[in-house]
């Protein structure tokens, strides 16, 4: 499954340009199919790794080729395949220029992402983590489009924006490389060990945990992106080609959160406990700041972008509650957010086509002749603002619950984010679809193929809304195992912060 998309990508290079897209789509579809199989015959009872692969890769360095899924990565893998399938189909419908390279890169990207989710070896994880960036660099850069930029500043050109993004994100991930190696070397004196399973056995002294923790945190926080290190996000989002951006913000941001859950918590438990508050504060800042920014943006892309800053804030919050419910919430929330952001981006494509730009203040009344589109968009919006009854709400509720039981104040403040979310999401919807139709905006229904893609995704949203348990059931065990080292939450700190409580 891992290498399928890449193979398809290569195939796409070989076949004539007309079919390139469909070849890639085929690969993506097969991957999706495998992912579904994976889910169906997943044994939700056990916490351990399933379908494991373990080959020796670079013995001198102690790097092994270890793959496998557990309850946490399972649905992220599925999400990845779904998102990519949608994006590739979408691109296949409206073929981009130089399709061969385009689809090859997309395939490469999917492979890398899947690799990151499947990797059970620390260095392998890091490798895929960095590898993910390369295709996106080219995709953003060569297929991106110039953006008018925010008022008072010049237009944003693709090349510099993407370079900024890559350098920024690499700052983190390269430090992580050092951190990973250090962890491995320090853990296994003499022969380095990088297998996560072994590293989990607390081979690291607290002292070394502390600095390595930050090396990893840097990588993940930047990738998410979290508050204060999201500087690369606006420009990148402005210029990126939307179908690609869809998968990017749907999946890649999750890798960061996933990394916290998969690597940081189990391998650096003491450090995690020591720095819990700091990370929680960062997460909180991301929520509030992201929300506030989201409802002042005029660019639809950036509304989406900042909303995901806020969402990722929630996820981080849940993870660092260091409680099963919080982490469960984080996992399901990752899936939800991904499955919501993809259709949102695709809809923004449609909006841009109808209003000739992504400036929401210049849109309006598009719902008039496009009821189906409006309906789909409405569902997406509601899911985005996590209306109770959507799976997103379940996620947020679990997260809030987890945090609440640990650190009540954080939960109360985070709740503000929920309110703001309702505002910016609705604002986006209304500005685009409702009110009078300005000049130069046409209200046109979406084509059936586009409708099929978005509709499919929306169907996923609805299905999850009715039965979120399908995710929770499978993730629960693994989550508990990841958090096994935090069985007894640090009471003293909790007692301090529980002002209004008891």
């Amino acid at each position, binding site marked *: 499954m891992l290498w399928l998309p890449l193979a398809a990508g290569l195939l796409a290079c070989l076949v004539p340009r007309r079919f390139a897209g469909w070849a890639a789509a085929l690969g993506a579809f097969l991957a999706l199919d495998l992912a579904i199989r994976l889910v169906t015959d997943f044994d939700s009872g056990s916490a351990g790794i399933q379908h494991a692969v373990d080959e020796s890769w670079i013995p001198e360095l102690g790097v092994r080729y270890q793959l496998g899924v557990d309850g946490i990565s399972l649905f992220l893998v599925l999400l990845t395949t779904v998102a990519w399938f949608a994006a590739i189909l979408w691109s296949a419908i409206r073929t981009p220029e130089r399709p061969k390279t385009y689809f090859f890169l997309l395939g490469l990207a999917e492979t890398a992402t899947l690799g990151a989710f499947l990797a059970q070896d620390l260095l392998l994880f890091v490798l895929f983590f960095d590898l993910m960036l390369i295709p996106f660099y080219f995709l953003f850069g060569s297929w991106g489009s110039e953006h008018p930029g925010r008022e008072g500043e010049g237009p944003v050109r693709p090349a510099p924006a993407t370079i900024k993004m890559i350098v*920024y994100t690499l700052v983190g991930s390269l430090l992580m490389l050092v951190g990973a190696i250090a962890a491995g070397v320090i853990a296994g004196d003499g022969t380095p060990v990088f297998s996560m399973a072994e590293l989990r056995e607390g081979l690291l002294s607290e002292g070394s945990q502390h600095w390595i923790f930050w090396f990893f945190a840097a990588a993940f926080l930047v990738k998410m992106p979290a508050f*204060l*290190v999201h*500087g*690369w996000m*606006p420009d990148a989002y402005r210029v990126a080609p939307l179908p690609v951006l869809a998968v990017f913000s749907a999946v890649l941001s999750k890798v960061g959160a996933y990394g916290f859950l998969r690597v940081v918590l189990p391998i650096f438990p003491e450090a995690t406990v020591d720095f819990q508050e700091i990370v929680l504060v960062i997460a909180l800042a991301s929520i509030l*700041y992201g929300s*506030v*920014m989201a*409802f*002042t*943006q005029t660019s639809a892309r950036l509304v989406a972008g900042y909303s995901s800053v806020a969402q990722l804030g929630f996820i981080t919050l849940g993870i660092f509650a260091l409680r*099963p*419910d*919080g*982490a*469960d*919430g984080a996992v399901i929330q990752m899936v939800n957010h991904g499955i919501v952001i993809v259709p949102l981006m695709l809809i923004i494509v449609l909006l841009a086509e109808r209003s000739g730009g992504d400036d929401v203040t210049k849109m309006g*009344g598009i*719902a*008039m*002749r496009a009821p189906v589109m409006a*309906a789909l968009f*409405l569902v997406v919006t509601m899911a985005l*603002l996590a*209306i*109770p*009854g959507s799976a997103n*709400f*379940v996620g947020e*509720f*679990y997260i*809030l*619950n987890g945090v*609440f*039981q640990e650190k009540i104040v954080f*939960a*109360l403040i985070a*709740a503000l984010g*929920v*309110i*703001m979310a*309702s*505002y910016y999401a*609705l*604002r986006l919807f*209304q500005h685009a*679809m*409702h009110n*009078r*139709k300005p000049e130069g905006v046409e209200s046109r229904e979406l084509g059936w193929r586009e409708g099929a893609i978005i509709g499919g995704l929306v169907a996923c949203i609805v299905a999850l809304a009715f*039965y*979120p*348990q399908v995710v*929770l*059931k499978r993730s*629960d065990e693994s*989550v*508990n195992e990841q958090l096994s080292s935090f069985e007894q939450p640090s009471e003293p700190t909790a007692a301090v912060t529980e002002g*209004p409580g008891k």
Partner: protein
Amino acid sequence: MDATTYGWLILAFPLAGSMVIALGWRALPGRAAGWIGTGAIGLAFLCAIGALVQILDHPVEDRQLTNSLYDYASAGGLDIQMNVLVDPLSVFMCLVVTGVSTLIHLYSISYMTSDDGFRRFFSYLNFFVFSMLLLLLAGNLILLIVGWAFVGFASYALISFWFRRGTATGAGMKAFVINVVGDVGLVIAALFIFRELGTFDLLQIFERAPEEFTTNEGVAVAIGCLLLVGAAAKSAQVPLHTWLPDAMEGPTPVSALIHAATMVTAGVYLIGRFHPVFEIALTAADIAAFIGLATLLIAATIALVVTDLKRIIAYSTMSQIGYMVMGVGIGAYSAAFFHLMTHAFFKALLFMAAGSIIGAMANRQNIDLMGGFRRAMPFTVATLLIGCLALAAFPGTSGFFSKDEILAFAEHRGGFYWVFAIGGYIGALLTAFYAFRIGFRVAYGDPVPEAREVEAGHISHAEPENPATGEREDTDIGFPGPEHHIAEREWPMKIAMSVLAFGALFAGLVQVPGVDAVIEHFLEGSFEDSTLYNDLPSNAAEWRGLGVGSIISLLGIGFAAVLYLQRPGTTKRLAERFAGIHKFLENKWYFDEAIDFLIVRPALGFGRWANSVFERYVVNGLVVGTVGAAKGANAAVRVAQSGYLRGYALLLVLGFCGLALYFLIAGS
């Protein structure tokens, strides 16, 4: 079939109806959508009756039945089922909701015929009913919150139904956001409850609450207050009420359904539902009562001066719900729910009548432009007046019994609760007055042109425009349809209105002090654990209350008669005399402005600041700074790379000297 199955069916029909209409929107011919919708709700109503029958078989003490369909979300120590709780309270509410809804659907079939959004309208309407019922039947707190939020969403969708009206969309946004505030209140309450009681299941909560909490324990009160936030937001109680008047932007049936009969009463239901908590957290209960009181007075005063027909009714709704909240706050549960029922009847009726008149007025809503319809539209006017009588608690009408029962209980409760009684009676006076302000202004006086046209046999057609702003509109999708419909010409409207009129007149008789107490006995199944439920005022006290009530309402009606029938124009003079007060009331006590000033402005301001300053200078500064540093260093290196061969040699030797120096120092 047992009651819970009916419960599920009650939920199933509206949902199905909504989905069918939504998916088949293109296929359905003419009014079919309307009939489907109405039918779905009708079936739901029948199921509710079925549930009622079933539940009556059970002995009073175990009339609380739950049934779980599947695990909704259970992990990490939380356990959330997809389950329903069918008990007298929920069944009672379901009956009211489905009953009134059926009629309103029926009414809408005609009222909305000529609107381009006909199908969309019914799909929304059914969805709304579904969510309302979900809210009522929910077996656990989370599901209740879900229903709660869905209701909010549905009301948003319906308020901004005419989505190309700026005012409508704005109002929708406002309503939704305020509702979300309420949701969050509930969510946090849920979190507290889970921490303290470790469960979300309603029955378990009610079981454990008394065990876990001592009376007026801090946490309990906190929970109570958080629940109140939710209730206030949904039931338009001060200070979260501002959305309700604006919500009148929606089509009139929507106002009738959501903003009079059903949704706004959710708050009352919530408080009643959580009475075990509130009876422990007495402070919270009292706060609720005070909120109710404040709301009923404020709303009533505003209703005196507003000129928009629908808004007057809206404010009266607020104030009536104020009564109910006050009722459940002080523990007069049966009375409150009794009033809830009667209010549903007469308020829906009022709105329908208003809708019919607005239709005749070609969508204009200002009562100053109205008058003399009594000969033009006898039926409508008759129903309108019936509604007004009930609202004014005219002796014998439904409103009479229910409202005064609450007040009697307040008196009976003793302590400082007499305050509520007094306030209630003052409110009653105002209510009676403004009720007939509507009645007389619309019905009597000399006919306005529109009225004449109707008499002449056709409905006037003004240019379509937004009643609020007066801007021009086409009648295409997203704006009101080209034609207007009045009860006189549409039998579905007629039926719906007459049924409600009947209810408004005689529904009070189900619970006449000393004679019968149907509702009280029925609801007992849900309130058996309540301490307050069963100590009721004596019949004598009740009758005394009724006496006072009747006098007051007659007084109010009398005033209205004097001011509007005998000496028209007096009101204008009064307004000029007390210009200050008048302005204050006209601006609705400046609540909007206050909220805008305290919350909206700061938030937006911060946002703008963050966007223009923080983002640019701090976040980008991080980037720009590093880039600048790199550039500077780069420049330095390139200057050093001067191209002067001897310069290179110099640096080389310099480096060598440094290295040698280090070695000499390190070595020795």
